[in-house]
């Protein structure tokens, strides 16, 4: 009984921290429509700043708290609002979510950069050693403060959102920003207030939980995952239910830790220890599954600035050709160590490619793609022993099956709830399944991750030897290029149209009799299979893999890079592969290990400006016209070929070679412009009779649109003249001010 009381109190305190975190999440979601994945990272930043001020610089507790909670945290919230979040209007839920993931990755990297993770740090409780006696159990002042703060936050937020005009205006702005403006509300103010308060709550939670966790950036950042479930139980809007949910999760987690131990269950104990860590995500999964669909509606933008480009076969084949040719050149010019490290890029690129049909075309947000890759890697390692390529087939089949199984309960979900359900699955794999000790199923002994490390051999294809790094690199490129063509084929075919239709209007799909359930299951299965194969290819490249390679935050990076470059472009997958699977950044900036992540994050933050990704916004408009200009293409290809020859004959080194290739590629748009200028007609086309200028320029850029122009245009396109009133110069007899604009 005594243990039960201790666990209950401990559970309530943990629940209190989740309540504060989930309260902040709910606040920003209710008032801005953005589910802030970076909430935990903000808490981590605040906790580290508090450590710096109080424990390192010796400032008094009250002053440190005042500076962090009263000044820095709200100021950071206001900064987030002005610099990032308010630019997200008219973007899809995926983009909005990814921007906060970008903030998470940047903050996490920044914290690890500023406060070296290798240096041990400690944060101790408030009023250390002080406690009161409750039901025969000592409860520390710190825990009591945590509970009190949780209660005050829950009540305070409820009052703010329901009983103050500022709170109502915050909610109104999310419902209809323009309408709120037309009512005289300044939308910047509620948004700013919401982010300032939300960030402050993240800081409070971060500081309160810091003494309970190992004081490191990652666990503090991932605290947010535990709070998701509470926020979902409150349906992302009900603060009382969020509070209740947080308490349930706190209790379940602590009871799990207390009772699911090896001492109580000698046989099952080792398997259950990871389970208690996964309790919050299990609760999240169950909560999402049990809540009625009608209550799981997120804030969706009815019209977004995002469009899906239909790729052409010519462009796609050129892309595939360039990938293979580039890989051949790179494989023959990279240093041995760099080449070995870079073979992993094709695994990441394939995992990135798996995101395209599911998230890019079908609009189904999945945060579990790297998890599926982990499952694929397990399959290839165990079922493709000795480099048997059938391992890849097994990986595809098993991952497709698991993908469909995950999709089944998720069929009724969309938007943020689907993202959270898949996040729950990924975290469960990461925290529990991948770490399971060996077990036996019937006569078969199963040891998923070989108690820590999976071993791989290079695939043994009949007639082809890809055991060397060079051959494997080219093999990876060919595999990726062919897979990218499969994705293009899907996009251009009937299935692709179904996926896009489902994303654009599920209601319209239902009315035309489309089976959206089958389509959803198929795309989940297909995407999981692709990710699984990607995991296998990654394993073949690396030789050994551990669960860390497939952790939840790494999965966020893959998705993040895909979104930055453009969720519907195979080029984005290549970008993700290069960024995550090559030592490019560490070679360029050897002293700044965290720079890669920070750069990814900063790029992601700019998504509000180019929600279609930089490939669609910048690269395609500049380079695609070259496909119709053989002269320019041939010129660039010849220059590159010459450079390749010079490189292979060792006339030039790697750096001049790379710079030359870059120039030859960057020169294409410039060459196109020059070609257009040369071919452009030297004389202006004739102005049609009666018009004061070219018809397409009339009424624009200060060119006046005169009455005579209207008449001449009508004549030109054989329209009858407008009624007399339309062209009369005299004012209307009714109103002195009322006259048409002729």
């Amino acid at each position, binding site marked *: 009984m005594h243990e039960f009381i201790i666990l209950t109190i401990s559970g309530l305190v943990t629940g209190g921290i989740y309540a504060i975190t989930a309260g902040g999440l709910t606040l920003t979601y209710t008032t801005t429509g953005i589910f802030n994945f970076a909430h935990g990272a903000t808490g981590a930043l605040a906790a580290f700043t508090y450590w710096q001020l109080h424990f390192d610089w010796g400032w008094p507790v009250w002053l440190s708290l005042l500076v962090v909670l009263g000044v820095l945290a709200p100021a950071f919230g206001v900064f987030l609002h002005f610099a990032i979040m308010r630019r997200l209007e008219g973007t899809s839920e995926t983009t909005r979510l990814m921007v906060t993931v970008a903030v998470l990755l940047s903050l996490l990297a920044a914290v690890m950069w500023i406060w070296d993770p290798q240096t041990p740090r400690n944060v101790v409780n408030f009023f250390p050693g002080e406690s009161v006696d409750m039901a025969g159990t000592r409860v520390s002042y710190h825990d009591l403060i945590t509970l009190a703060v949780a209660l005050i936050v829950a009540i305070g937020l409820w009052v703010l959102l329901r009983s103050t005009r500022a709170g109502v205006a915050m909610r109104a702005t999310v419902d209809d920003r323009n309408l709120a403006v037309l009512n005289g509300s300044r939308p910047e103010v509620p948004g700013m207030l919401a982010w300032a308060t939300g960030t402050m709550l993240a800081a409070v939670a971060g500081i309160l939980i810091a003494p309970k966790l190992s004081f490191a950036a990652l666990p503090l950042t991932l605290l947010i995952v535990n709070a998701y479930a509470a926020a979902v139980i409150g349906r992302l809007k009900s603060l009382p239910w969020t509070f209740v949910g947080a308490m349930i999760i706190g209790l379940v987690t602590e009871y799990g830790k207390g009772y699911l131990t090896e001492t109580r269950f000698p046989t099952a104990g080792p398997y259950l220890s990871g389970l208690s860590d996964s309790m919050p995500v299990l609760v999240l999964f169950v909560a999402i599954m049990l809540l009625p669909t009608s209550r799981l509606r997120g804030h969706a933008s009815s019209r977004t600035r995002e469009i899906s480009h239909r790729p052409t076969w010519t462009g796609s084949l050129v892309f595939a050709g360039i990938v293979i040719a580039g890989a051949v050149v790179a494989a023959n010019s990279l240093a041995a160590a760099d080449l070995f490290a870079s073979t992993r890029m094709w695994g990441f690129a394939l995992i990135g490619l798996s995101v395209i049909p599911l998230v890019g075309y079908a609009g189904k947000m999945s945060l579990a793609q790297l998890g599926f890759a982990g499952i694929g890697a397990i399959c290839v390692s165990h079922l493709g022993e000795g480099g048997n390529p059938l391992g890849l087939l097994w990986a595809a089949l098993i991952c497709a099956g698991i993908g469909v199984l995950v999709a089944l309960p998720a069929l009724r979900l969309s938007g943020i709830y689907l993202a959270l359900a898949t996040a729950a699955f990924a975290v469960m794999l990461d925290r529990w399944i991948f770490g399971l000790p060996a077990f036996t199923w019937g006569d078969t002994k199963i040891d998923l991750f070989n108690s820590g490390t999976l071993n791989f051999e290079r695939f043994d294809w009949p007639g082809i030897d890809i055991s060397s790094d060079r051959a494997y690199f080219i093999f990876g490129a060919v595999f990726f290029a062919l897979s990218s063509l499969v994705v293009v084929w899907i996009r251009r075919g009937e299935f692709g149209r179904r996926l896009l239709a489902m994303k654009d209007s599920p209601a319209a799909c239902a009315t035309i009799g489309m089976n959206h359930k089958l389509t959803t299951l198929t795309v989940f299965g297909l995407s999981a299979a692709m990710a699984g194969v990607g995991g296998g290819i990654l394993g073949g490249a690396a030789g050994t893999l551990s669960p860390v390679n497939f952790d939840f935050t790494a999965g966020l990076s893959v998705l993040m890079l895909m979104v930055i470059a453009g969720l519907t472009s195979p080029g984005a997958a290549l970008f993700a592969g290069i960024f995550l699977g090559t030592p490019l950044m560490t070679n360029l900036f050897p002293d700044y290990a965290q720079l890669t992540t920070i750069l990814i994050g900063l790029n992601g933050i700019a998504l509000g400006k180019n929600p279609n990704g930089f490939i669609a916004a910048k690269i395609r408009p500049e380079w695609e016209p070259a496909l119709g200009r053989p002269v320019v293409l041939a010129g660039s290809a010849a220059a590159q070929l010459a450079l390749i020859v010079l490189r292979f004959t060792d006339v030039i080194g790697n750096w001049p070679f790379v710079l030359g290739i870059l120039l030859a590629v960057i020169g294409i748009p410039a060459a196109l412009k020059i070609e257009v200028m040369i071919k452009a007609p030297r004389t202006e086309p004739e102005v049609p009779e009666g018009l004061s200028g070219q018809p397409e320029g009339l009424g*624009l850029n200060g060119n006046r649109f005169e009455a005579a122009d209207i008449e001449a245009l009508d004549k030109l396109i054989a329209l009858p003249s407008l009624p007399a009133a339309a062209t009369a110069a005299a004012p209307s007899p009714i109103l002195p001010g009322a006259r*048409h604009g002729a």
Partner: protein
Amino acid sequence: MTLNVADAQPAGAPSAPPLLELRGISAAYEQVEVLHKVDLAVPTGKVMAVLGPNGAGKTTMLKVITGLHQPTAGDIYLAGRCVTGAAPVDLARIGLCSIPEGRGVFPNLTVSENLWMATYRGVSRKEIEEKVFPIFPRLEQRRNQAAGTMSGGEQQMLAVARAIATNPAIILLDELSMGLAPLVVDQLYDVVGKIAETGVTVLLVEQFARTALAVADLAAVMSGGRILQVGTPDEIAGDLHSAYLGG
């Protein structure tokens, strides 16, 4: 600045400045010009109906007046003062009230909270409820219900209620009748008529001409981004078919 209706002289006086006046307003979406030098004057205390087919530019004109869309040329005058380029929020606060196309309510807020959003002009929450609930008793019954769960007619009632609650100088109504049963439309227009009787200027945009002309003092016909004709409802009613069907 607060818009004072008294600033504008009584309608009908020879030099009476209209409460709202558009002078040579042009507007474009990207490169496509959709309003071509529109001139329109809405006299103080009158109801003006702007009629026209789909794509005539009516809604864009209202967006320009409310400041949600910036004109490419021309000026807007409110009570004789040029307000071109003013922020929508400032225009709302000085008394230009607008009910946009569709259901002009906040679906996730309750009826009471929706009305609360009208307090930015300095009217208290209590005053608003005392003014609105006698006109729309059904809203009082549903004061704690989320607006998005009410019927279309009730939602439009709420939008009108929120508009009149602010004691505006001028109300802009965009397609009030859209998607509503004729009976509900009649009720809503009854209310519009009553609002106008209190001296509030109304500019309403409608596709359904008959309904709008019944309450209007003046009407304008719009097509192809131009005002084609301005006159009394009787004058306009005769020529309407040409505006909608061409010819």
